């Protein structure tokens, strides 16, 4: 991904790779951890865990509904359970199983959806989860994590598996810039302030965090100081940081690799409306499906670049100035 290169961010591993590495490490420490797969372990990166712990790994075939149900049963019987597939198939195919067998009974199941967003590229819209955040956040009792880079994905994986209850972790296919260094402070439900600013706040998640940092750098050239928040936890949202951003900076832009309906922006807008209304703009996928193409081409065509964030920022600054 191009985002972040011009501000000196180094390319790191894909978040799915970081997740897979952490999972295996955690598996060595936690013998109660089991993994359920829908025959995509080489894509989701649960493969390494499967090789090392075959007796704790279940490939139930290409059957997401059953995958989620089996995960629920294992969890109810006392196991720490992680169930992984493509985000689109897991959330969309097994939505009711997640509702009924995981969310409602508050089963200790960690769902991991890989291949999120349009940045998967050439495989096209059938494989692209652009609704998954809306679906996952719709469940009562759920925690939803969308980490921005490899380091924070590992932190999120560890933090999630230390907790009981239902989680959804969203990972991506492409390599993304490294934003964090090992040992940084990751707390579920607490946004990370990556840049201070007084003119507006850009609230982003996933690979849009690097784009937000790049946009903030561009805006600085024009004398606009943007605060940047990495909102890695979409549910529960860090309401305190959002309200503070509105009060301190008076304008908000959200950025996400997801449909605008039901995503990060929609959640932030509700918090803003309920606490301290200020002008807002939303960067995300408009009400449409994408297409096949190179990841970078798709991000540009569908409006998910630093440039798009900068334009949105300039718009809210104008609104703010009335």
């Amino acid at each position, binding site marked *: 991904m191009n985002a972040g290169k011009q501000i000196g961010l180094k390319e790191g591993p894909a978040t799915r790779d970081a997740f897979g590495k952490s999972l295996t490490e955690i598996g060595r420490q936690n013998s109660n951890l089991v993994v359920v797969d829908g025959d995509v372990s080489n894509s989701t990166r649960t493969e390494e865990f499967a090789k090392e712990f075959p007796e*704790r790994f279940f490939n139930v075939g290409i059957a997401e509904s059953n995958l989620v149900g*089996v995960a629920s049963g294992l969890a109810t019987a006392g196991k720490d359970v992680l169930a992984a597939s493509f985000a689109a198939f897991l959330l969309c195919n097994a939505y009711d199983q997640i509702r*009924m067998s995981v969310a409602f009974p508050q089963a200790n199941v960690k769902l991991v959806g890989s291949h999120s967003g349009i940045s998967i590229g050439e495989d096209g819209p059938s494989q692209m989860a652009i609704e998954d955040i809306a679906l996952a956040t719709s469940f009562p009792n759920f925690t939803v994590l969308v980490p921005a880079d490899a380091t924070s994905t590992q932190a999120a994986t560890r933090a999630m598996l230390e907790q009981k209850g239902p989680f959804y972790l969203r990972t991506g296919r492409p390599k993304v810039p490294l934003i964090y260094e090992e040992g940084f402070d990751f707390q579920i439900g607490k946004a990370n302030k990556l840049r201070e600013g007084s003119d507006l706040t850009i609230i982003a998640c996933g690979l849009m965090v690097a784009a937000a940092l790049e946009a903030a750098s561009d805006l600085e050239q024009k004398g606009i100081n943007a605060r940047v928040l990495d909102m890695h936890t979409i549910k529960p949202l860090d309401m305190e940081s959002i309200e503070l951003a509105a009060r301190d900076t008076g304008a908000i832009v959200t950025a996400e690799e997801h449909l605008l309906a039901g995503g990060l922006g929609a959640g932030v807008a509700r918090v803003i409306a309920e606490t301290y209304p200020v002008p807002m703009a939303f960067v995300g996928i408009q009400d449409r499906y994408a297409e096949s193409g190179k990841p970078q081409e798709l991000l540009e065509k569908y409006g998910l670049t630093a440039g798009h964030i900068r334009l949105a920022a300039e718009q809210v600054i104008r609104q703010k100035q009335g």
Partner: protein
Amino acid sequence: MERQFMNAHKTTKPRSIDELQTISWRLSRQIIEITTKAGSGHPSSSLSAIDILVALYFGGIMTYDSSQPAWPDRDRFILSKGHGAPGLYVTLAEASFFDPKLLPTFRKLGSPLEGHPNMRVLPGVEASTGSLGQGLSIGLGHALAARVDGRNYRVYVMIGDGEADEGQIWEASMAAAKYKVNNLTALLDHNKFQQTGPVSQVMPSLFPVADKWRAFGWFVEEINGHNMEEVVATLKKVQNIKDQPQMIICHTLKGKGLSPFEKDDVNRKHGVPLTEEEAKIAFAELDKQYGRSGGD
């Protein structure tokens, strides 16, 4: 591995066939009582299943301790056809998982006896069900957990014949056979009717049902689900099956052949409680069917 029978409840001791009949008769009456009182619920779908539930919980089949519902070594029963909740509730009350005085609160605001089973609020309920098709997968998860943890418990899952329309049932069926979970027994409450009509019309291609399960790799038995002796004997027999999950196809009557349910011949009064008048007729017929009388 031998299970530690810590304070195992007395109901884990087998009852005679005659005693099981008495329990079944009493619980059948209770199913009608609580649904008629609630003015809603699924009595006919509960009555078709009740003899099987009685055999499981009181016929020396399942080992459990109702004073410790979370005992890790307990056998599990999952009612995948969650609308049969009244049958499950009267059984769990009989097994002392909760006070039978709660039964009349069925479907009332604030009661743990919700319209469909909610494991978060009622002891003894092993899975929250009601969205059809999901219980067999959950049961498979429990069965696999027993293997991972080196425990000896068995898992029983009851599914409906209408419920077998759901694709997830067959996903779970394939996966269970793959993992050769011989500690998983499925019970098909084959009462022949679903919500809008006979299974033979709504989904004729469910048949031949026994052949399908055999083709999916299961050990299959076909029995009369109202013949207590046969139900108990078959449940004991399948405990010895190696390397295969087992399906017991239980031929049952939706509404247990009671005339108030037979009147509505489209679906055997699916999801419709009996009126007070109809309940009286049903009670009399139950007394005659079981050769018992005197109510509770």
